[in-house]
Every structure is written in C-alpha cells, then in structure tokens.
C-alpha cells in the first residue's frame, strides 16, 4: 500500500513540500494541512512544482485550513479538498503516514 505524506509548513518558508514530493513514490498521496495549504495556491512560485508532482501523486488539502487562511478560492485545479473525516479516511487507506514537519 502507498504512503500518505502530510505537509504542514508553507512552501515559501520551508522545503518540506519539495522533500515530500521528491520522496513520494508514484501513486502515493500528499495531504496539505495547517500552513502546508499555502502549497495549494495557484499562480505562485510554488505552483509549477505542485502541478508537476500531481502527474504522479494525488494531492489533497484540508478545507478548514484553506478557509482559515482565506485561500479556498485560489486552489490549483485538481487538488482535492477534504474535511477532517476525509483526513482520517486517507490515513486508514494508506499503509503509513509520513509527516514532513
């Protein structure tokens, strides 16, 4: 089973998202949460990296964290939004959770 990678740091401040992407094997998932959701913004310097990664890994973002930061309306197309129940479901569907802090 594939691994779920979670990222909770802004890609503009830390390299956690980049490290998650270049570690994630094809078919695994990356969930953006807390400040990690800034990685879901379109039209930013980080967007090309995310769009490129989405060719091989599935990218999710936690809705409540997007709402808190006022960026729900500017998410890259194809990033799937999940609620807390969805987060739990993702955790159960994957073999392990790797947290990029």
């Amino acid at each position: 089973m594939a691994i779920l990678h979670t990222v909770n740091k802004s890609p503009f401040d830390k390299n956690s998202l980049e490290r998650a992407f270049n570690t994630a094997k094809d078919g695994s998932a990356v969930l953006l949460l807390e400040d990690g959701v800034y990685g879901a913004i379109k039209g930013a310097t980080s967007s090309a990296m995310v769009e490129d990664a989405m060719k091989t890994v599935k990218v999710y973002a936690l809705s409540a964290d997007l709402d808190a930061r006022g960026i729900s309306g500017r998410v890259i197309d194809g990033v799937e939004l999940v609620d807390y129940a969805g987060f739990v479901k993702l955790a159960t569907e994957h073999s392990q959770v790797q947290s990029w802090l």
Partner: protein
Amino acid sequence: MSEGTVKQFLYVNRKAPHGTVYALESLEVVLIGAAFEQDVRLAFMDDGVFQIMKGQDTTGIGTKNFAPTYNALGDYDINKIYVEKESLEERGLTEDDIMALTYEDEDDDWAEKSSISIISRAEMADLIDSSDVMFNF
C-alpha cells in the same frame, strides 16, 4: 521615557498566521505599544503578507480569528502599513487580495484614507535602514 523623544518603531511581520503564534503575538504587542505614542510602522513581507489576506474564516479550525483586529489599527493611530510587492507576487497575490486597512485623518476633516503602501523590496530595505527600533515576528 523622556518627553519629546519620538523614535521610529518598525514591526517586521514575516510569518503566516494561524500555523504559529507569531502573527497574533505581533498584533498584541503593536496594540499595547500604541499607547507609548511613538512613530509606529508595520511591515509585512514573505509569508507575513498572508496575515492580512481578505476572507479569513477560522471557524473550521476552532481558533480565534484575529484578522478583523487589523481593521482597528487605524483607530490606534497606526496608519503606516507597508506591504512588500515581491512577496505578494511570489504568492500569486495582488493588492486586491489584502484587507483594505484605513484610518481617519484628523488633519483632513476625518477623511478615510488607506493605511497601506505597497513597496518594493529595495524600498523595504530603506524602511528597515531608517528605523530606530525593530521588533521582529
């Protein structure tokens, strides 16, 4: 504090809100510091520009939404707010995406004016250079 000594205070905000406590702590120090009647300026750069994003709603994460408090800065005579243009652009943002923070100008019949200046990275360097006291968050 000796009378007549007014220093230029600069609060430098570089962290995103909500994920860490820096943004809220900065805001509280700014509001407390407003009582000392110094020349106060706020700078937002790097992820700090996210602090004044429009439309923040923390209902879902169960924390205090302190974003509306930035609107009160004008009432505390804090009306020199500088936002770095390059930081906005790197994040896919424009001036339209940040809160329209204003103040009422007592020298101009209380006309409502914008507190925000969008400045370049080079201008930010000048702003930092010209400050007497800096608080970094």
